[in-house]
């Protein structure tokens, strides 16, 4: 869905959390209150550099429901010249940024009998809004964190402030099955498992859980959602020969609208099929919920409100 509504914010506070993690406090730049959000939510921060624009998703780390100020924690990725480096070097107290409306692809399963969270490093951030809510609900919670030794003390403190449940922190490298296999096997029925962290840890936990017969409905992984953005490409309008450059931060439908092409639409979220266009050449990257597997396999149609191109060009019959 095109969550095109953005919120202008001012950075009111920047504090170091660890050597390479900073906490940013964001307040509304136009005096209005920020929208409340649910535990596990993130925002997409737009960073306007001199050369280019970055859009990174960061979990909100204050308790859910907060409307006065948001906080995010950003780790500077080594050798990064991308968004995290920008946040660390260019963003200071008083800087203005744009953020998306909060959205949540990692919600708490409120009816769960027990909650087991496994985080790796900065992957602990989505849990920081979840733990206080679970504590308030007196839910059974266990938190497992894998991190570097130098981050152990600070991260442990950050978690301990927010939870009443058990916390275990690991600073050595270890296979996920070896570390978590017995713990996962011993969980009572009705337990929900959540993971967020580096790919290796997430995959290892997923494999272990699957092998132990953990039901998919009780296993949750943070993802920041596909959406309608991605690599830029060129849309060729066959009937007029026009070429339209689709930027990374807009959908094909938005690019067509920007260029004054009259394109019908309704839901703008890949469900209704109203905006379907005929593809003459090029491979679409289908992201809709509308076209079936067969329709995709035989090609011919795509929904420009969410879907993009796998290659550099897509020829459309308009």
């Amino acid at each position: 869905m095109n969550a095109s509504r953005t919120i202008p914010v001012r950075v009111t506070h920047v504090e170091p959390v660890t050597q390479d993690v900073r906490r940013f406090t964001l307040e509304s730049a136009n005096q209005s209150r920020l929208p409340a959000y649910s535990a596990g939510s993130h925002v997409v921060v737009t960073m306007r550099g001199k050369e280019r624009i970055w859009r990174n998703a960061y979990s909100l780390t204050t308790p859910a429901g907060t409307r006065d100020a948001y906080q995010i924690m950003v780790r500077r990725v080594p050798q990064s010249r991308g968004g995290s480096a920008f946040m660390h070097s260019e963003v200071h107290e008083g800087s203005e940024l744009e953020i998306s409306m909060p959205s949540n692809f990692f919600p708490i399963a409120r009816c769960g009998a027990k909650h087991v969270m496994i985080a790796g490093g900065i992957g602990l951030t989505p849990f920081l809004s979840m733990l206080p809510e679970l504590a308030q609900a007196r839910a059974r919670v266990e938190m497992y964190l894998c991190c570097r030794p130098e981050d152990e003390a600070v991260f442990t403190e950050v978690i301990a402030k927010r939870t009443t449940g058990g916390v275990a922190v690991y600073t050595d490298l270890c296979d996920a099955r070896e570390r978590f296999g017995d713990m996962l096997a011993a969980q009572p029925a009705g337990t929900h498992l959540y993971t967020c962290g580096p790919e290796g840890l997430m995959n290892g936990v997923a494999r272990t859980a699957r092998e132990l017969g953990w039901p998919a409905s009780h296993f949750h992984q943070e993802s920041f959602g596909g959406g309608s953005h991605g690599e830029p490409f060129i849309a060729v309008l066959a009937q007029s020969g026009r070429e339209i450059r689709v930027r990374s931060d807009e959908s094909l439908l938005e690019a067509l609208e920007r260029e004054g092409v009259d394109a019908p639409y309704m839901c703008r979220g890949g469900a209704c099929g109203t905006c379907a266009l005929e593809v003459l050449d090029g491979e679409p990257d289908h992201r809709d919920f509308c076209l079936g597997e067969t329709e995709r396999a035989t090609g011919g149609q795509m929904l420009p409100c969410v879907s993009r191109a796998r290659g550099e060009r897509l020829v459309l019959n308009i």
Partner: protein
Amino acid sequence: MAIDFKTDETFRDTFTFRNSDEAILRFPFPFPEDKYMYSVNIEPHVKDGNSPVFRSTFDIDEHYVAECRERALTLERDPLRCQVLDHMGPAQWDTLELIMESLAEDYPGHFTLERNGDQWKWTNRPLGLEQSFTFGDDSTLPCAPFEYITRQAQGDFVLIDQRDDNLFMDGGMVTTQADWSLDFDLGMNFVEWHGPVPLAHQAGIFERALKFLLRMQLGAPVRRLNWTMTVNPRLDTSPESYPEWGADRASVTPQNIGDKLHLRVELQTLFRLPRSNAILFGVRCYLIALGDLARVPKWGKRLHRVLSSLPPELAEYKGITRYRQTAVDWLAPLDDGSALSGGTHPEVDRLGVELV
């Protein structure tokens, strides 16, 4: 903009409900084409679009005061029309906040919301209510927050929880419904509560709609229109009260149909709620007598064509089989068969003469 509320209208027994000329012209006519079939006709709920009722987040019209009283009457007789499961507490406050903020913003002359931290004061002038309370503290309101605010709103509201990649009907205020029961559906998932709908399952409509709704985002509400027909301007056509209205279906005659038979349109809205990550489903009911509707020539012709061509399964599901032909026959002389423009715009500024 001051609304002239028709405070004495009734939706039962004496049925004194009437639409003013202005209300007829702003009616959300649901048929953009001469034939009707199910579709995922979802669009962003933004404050424009082709009907004046889309210009507010929650539309308030001349029937507001009377509809709130009608709701109170229904609840007095059957308190189970408002139920919310225990885990939906945050969603209750989300709903209160959304409706209060929207009404105060869209109708500042009628509603005011003053906030000082958690201390809120709500003023509802049409109903003559003032309430100071602490946001988040149930004990500071005369009833639970969801019931409190939906007693002051037109249309039904359903609280939908999201979990296990599915949606669950875990609460609601349902007193103006087209023959479905909250008490029966409470706790069901999306596929279960849509079980009785014909044709749409095969078309994969619910599968698509569910995937779409699961990804619905904060600040990006959506809407669609649905419709059926109702004999007499009765809001409470529930299974629970069927003995009171079921027999009305046999009371439609060629002589009384223009007054008696109503097109019933539901403006359905869906909002992602902020704290709970639940979804609020609003079902706002608009009624218009056939005779009033036909005063807009385009609408009369189009309704004739839609009713004539409606698949029998749909007519049966909507409960209109018994009087459909009477309605088609009554509308037929008004339809010259001329081509109609697409869309739902009335295309007149003033109404034609009264037909009944």
